């Protein structure tokens, strides 16, 4: 369990204050949508929420073509063209939602972005619990310019975080109440999220 919790999932290849893109070490081995990941810059640990994942050609000029028509399985396809896996890369994007400095967690943007080539890890259970004691990061998610519906992302984050809580139900109720305050003027969005985290 411990080894799984400190799993390194990639390396930062594009970095900005508000988010970063990491390349996976193994093809298609992404962290989950809405998962809490961490990387670091000098002195601080930066937290990100995974909001997108892609696999495509390493060389942008070379597009993958369907080639498995005569193959019996995807595994057979990769065996028959072993170079393919070396020509593709998997990446995921994370939105920065906070950082940890001097053992204190802040749910707002860090003063410095993560350096390129910083390693990215899945947050272990204890760290997810520690981070999810506050729901301030939901503001950041709601106001972010991500490419998928905010409701989908927030619901995915809360579902993920609830899995490691001692009282999953209480956690989701508390999150729901917080969202009800933030989205008091937008019942439809609130309802969409609540529908997606209902047990």
């Amino acid at each position, binding site marked *: 369990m411990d080894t799984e919790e400190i799993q390194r999932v990639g390396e930062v290849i594009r970095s900005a204050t508000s988010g970063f893109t990491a390349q996976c070490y193994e093809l298609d081995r992404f962290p989950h949508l809405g998962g809490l990941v961490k990387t670091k810059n000098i002195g601080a640990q930066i937290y990100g929420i995974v909001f997108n994942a892609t696999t495509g050609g390493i060389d942008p000029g*070379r597009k993958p073509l369907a080639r498995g028509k005569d193959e019996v399985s995807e595994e057979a396809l990769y065996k*028959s*063209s072993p170079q393919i896996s070396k020509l593709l890369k998997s990446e995921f994007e994370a939105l920065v939602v906070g950082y940890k400095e001097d053992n204190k967690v802040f749910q707002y943007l860090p003063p410095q972005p993560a350096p390129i080539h910083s390693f990215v890890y899945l947050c272990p259970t204890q760290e997810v619990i520690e981070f999810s004691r506050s729901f301030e990061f939901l503001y950041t998610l709601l106001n972010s310019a991500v490419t998928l519906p905010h409701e989908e992302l927030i619901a995915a984050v809360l579902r993920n975080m609830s899995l490691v809580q001692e009282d999953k139900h209480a956690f989701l109720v508390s999150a729901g109440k917080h969202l009800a305050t933030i989205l008091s003027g937008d019942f439809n969005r609130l309802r969409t999220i609540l529908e997606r985290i209902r047990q």
Partner: protein
Amino acid sequence: MSLDLDRIASQVEKMTDHIDAGNEERQKHLARAMSVLCDNSLNIDDLKNKIVSGKISWMPAEPVENLSNRYRPEQPPENFAVVATDGSQIDVDRHHSTRYYLINIGSVHLEYGDSADARLESAPQLYFDKTDLVMTSPDGSNREVAIEGTLLGIKRDIEEFKHLAQMAASLKEEIPALLLADGTLIRWNLMSKDIPEFIVSEFLGKGFLKCLDDIKEISEGKNIALASYISFPRSSDVVGSIRISICPYNPVNCDKCRRDNPNGNYACGAVDGVQDKDLFLTLLDSGERSGIFISRSSIQERYGIHRIYFYYVKIEDEIARIEIPEWIARNDTLLNMSHTLILDQCRRGQGYPVALSEAHEQAVVTAADRENLQKLVEASLSEKNMEINTSAKSFSKRTRWI
């Protein structure tokens, strides 16, 4: 200014009309050539003697077996490897005071079967030392020849083979393997009168042929074949043999024929314009290969045990020329394996050997790469407070202005 296509359109039309007008004649010539190729009564030994004894002004192929022999591929083995290299270069920029060139070798190792895996690598090497930039004659004359242009291309070819030999050495012993190179194995470009003998000796004897020696030694007793792949060949070596066959002179004497026929009406003109690929596109079924032939290029006299043979293979609707050294050509197992695995590579690579296409991708150097290398060199010079000298012509090309 971009190319003015409007002004070329009418010229393109003239060109296609010209090609169309020659088609009927070419078909007649092809039919004549095919009738000789498929003539089972043709005595190959007689033809060989006629080729060897003749005074011929072109390079015919020396037949080894019946001209129309053809072979089906075998079933590929369950486990096998294909190794390929390709290279590209950045030539010396004569408008820049810093003289250097770069050779980038792309290499690919593909393993199929139970332990399917791939290794794709590129190895860029910068050459800047005087001994790399210039070759000096060892005869004491101090004659110096700069390694650039054609000579750099030849040096790159040799580097490709050095890498191929290194990769051959690292192959697993237990599985059959094909070493694949791009382009011809016949270093005919060393035959230029402009290239002095000491360069030929260095590049061919101590370079290319030494690599072939190494590969031969590594493959001794193992199931390792070496071949080079020539896509869309324009050669007409076999047509050259057919010309000899239909030549009424025996011994063949092109000079005498020209003197005897001042009107240019030569018997061998009956197959003018036909290329080997036309013959084998007609003769072979998809996947089949032709029999083997020996190239009679004069540089081959220096090849010794590595004399180059070739055969043609039909891949879907295309013909490729495969060149192999004698020790592969004379080993039926390795010869057939080269045919089978090349065909298998083409099947996996949409008509072109996938290992070669990936080696090319690893090796290719783009215009942007050239520009970036130049910037890197300039940044490094500037960091050391060294002068950066470029010609005004180079500046005008790099900085476009009105």
